[in-house]
């Protein structure tokens, strides 16, 4: 079986080749790409803004406009936040990160830690 025939249905809209397809370019074009923005949408009043994805825009105002067109075409939102991706500071993705260790052994912070007799109402 040649590499060229190595196709998969995972193109979503149909079969595309996986073998022999590059995933990166050696040299980029000279064009400066618009910065990447992360987009957060409030679905309706009473809910938090939730991260929905990202997009490129030349500036903050354009990012809001693009976010409306890309992420709220069907009334998915009543409010949008955008923030440049390079302005986000995040914790380490490692689940064993000591950052989260302090909450690991404090079972007394959960209501289920406390035994209450079954016949005590409204607890």
């Amino acid at each position, binding site marked *: 079986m040649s590499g060229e025939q*190595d196709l998969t249905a995972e193109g979503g809209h149909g079969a595309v080749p996986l073998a022999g397809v590059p995933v990166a370019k050696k040299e980029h074009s000279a064009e400066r790409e618009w910065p990447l923005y992360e987009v957060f949408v409030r679905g309706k009043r009473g809910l938090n803004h939730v991260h929905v*994805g990202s*997009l490129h825009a030349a500036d903050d105002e354009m990012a809001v406009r693009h976010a409306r067109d890309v992420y709220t075409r069907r009334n998915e939102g009543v409010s949008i936040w955008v923030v440049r991706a390079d302005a986000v500071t995040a914790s380490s993705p490692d689940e064993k990160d000591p950052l989260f260790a302090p909450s690991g052994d404090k079972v007394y912070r959960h209501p289920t830690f406390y035994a209450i007799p079954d016949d005590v109402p409204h607890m």
Partner: protein
Amino acid sequence: MTTTQVAPDADDALLAQFEATIGRSDRIEPRDWMPDAYRKTLVRQVAQHAHSEIIGMQPEGAWITRAPSLRRKAILLAKVQDEAGHGLYLYSAAETLGVSRQELTELLIEGRQKYSSIFNYPTLSYADVGTIGWLVDGAAICNQVPLCRTSYGPYGRAMIRICKEESFHQRQGYELLSTMMRGTDEQRAMVQESVDRFWWPALMMFGPPDADSPNTAQSMAWGVKRNTNDDLRQRFVDMSVPQAEALGVTFPDPELRWNAERGHHDFGEPDWDEFMQVVRGHGPCNTQRIAHRRRAHEDGAWVREAATAFADRQRSERAEAHG
């Protein structure tokens, strides 16, 4: 083949953690450690899925100015705009893997990354708008619904958004065809002719038979892919047959019949030689599709540059004002 081995310098502990996450059917998230081959497989898959959505705007986009009514025109505009949106959700997911959208666009217009072969067929009549919605988007739904549970978090989340919108695409197509089927004999003939042209290419959308898809096993082990090509194709045929009956059209396959023993429909073999020709770039519209995408990209360059210059000026003026 690079997709079956992990990076040789991979730390065993990291690999074990990665495999444990996959094993729990948990999601891999952007900044997690992942084997290089997993990352590359995903970039290829998500990027080419994005390209398919973007190129997929062209066959139907051609009918926007010729839609028969304002209602149909508004629907078609919304649909084509959705395809652009789907492309952007997917480029956004691909970018979490460390590639840039600009880079991927360049790989597309240089012909180095591909898109689904279905979009290399022309849309010869307005009925094709309906057939694409019904059969092509129907096949896409079969492919995409299982991908909502794919192991890479951003890809799965993009697929959930896309699947919600695909349902509109399929229903508007089917309704369009139903309306034509209630029209004149000429309109009914147009629908049948269109279905005859798109049936086999739609079946080919699921890719070659499983025996000829060596990547499937690795992609399934990683939870990137959830069903085999043949499983999905069978599911699509079984779904489509009663829909065709309700519509009053037939599929151009003399071997298509219900098999009570299997509980599925039997059907003929698509012409895989034709499929390979189209994938290799010899389909009816390959050259036209890429040329159009390249032109749109290059004609838009001055707009991107002007917006960048304007943003730069706004920033420097603000900086001066704050002195």
